[in-house]
């Protein structure tokens, strides 16, 4: 699974992108976040307030219970401030 991070999420985790093979019990964004938080404190810090984090599956804004597989690209980021 390709995972991307943007803005202050990327700064806290100190990565913009990584390739991870996730275990079978990771089936949606919620379980992916739980899995990432077991890896490293920086993930826990980044995801501490989950309401502030948005996510996209294959470049499309998604809900936290949308299904994901190892073939998907998942991205985590704060609310957008473009324009």
């Amino acid at each position, binding site marked *: 699974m390709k995972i*991307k991070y*943007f*803005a*202050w999420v*990327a700064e806290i985790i100190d990565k913009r992108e990584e390739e991870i093979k996730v275990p079978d019990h990771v089936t949606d964004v919620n379980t992916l976040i739980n899995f990432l938080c077991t890896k490293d404190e920086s993930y826990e810090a980044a995801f501490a307030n989950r309401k502030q984090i948005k996510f*996209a599956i294959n*470049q*499309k*804004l998604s809900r936290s219970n949308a299904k994901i597989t190892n073939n998907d690209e998942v*991205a985590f*980021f*704060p*609310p*957008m*401030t*473009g*324009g």
Partner: protein
Amino acid sequence: MYIDVREEDFHVNKELERFENSSKTDAAISLFVGKVRAEENLISLNLDCYPDMAVKEILNIAENAKKKWQINNLTVIHRFGELLPGENIVFVITSSDHRTDCQEATQYIMDYLKNSAPFWKKEIYKDKSMWVEQKVADIEKMERWED
């Protein structure tokens, strides 16, 4: 329809000319240009971006605008990277047969670019830097268009 997400600057005049040349029979044109505000002590505005998603999302916003209004032609250019005060950030132009269509469509596109296109602004000042936070007022401007 032309959508471009890029780091390099653009020339507002040249983009307008290009647009006009491909919209010669349109009676109404509405353009918005957004630039980096020259705030005191601001060194740069760093725009983080998820380019693949940005192109898709802007396309989606543009398609929705074309469903709501009679739009003949449309261009959106949005930059990312390190932008200096006074530099261009965003260029939105639409054309239509009647003025209200293009004026509202341009506003709509800007309102959605602010809150639903994957860009994140960080202001770099001489003595500090901070990520810009999404504003409730901006979300309300976006939500006024919902049916």
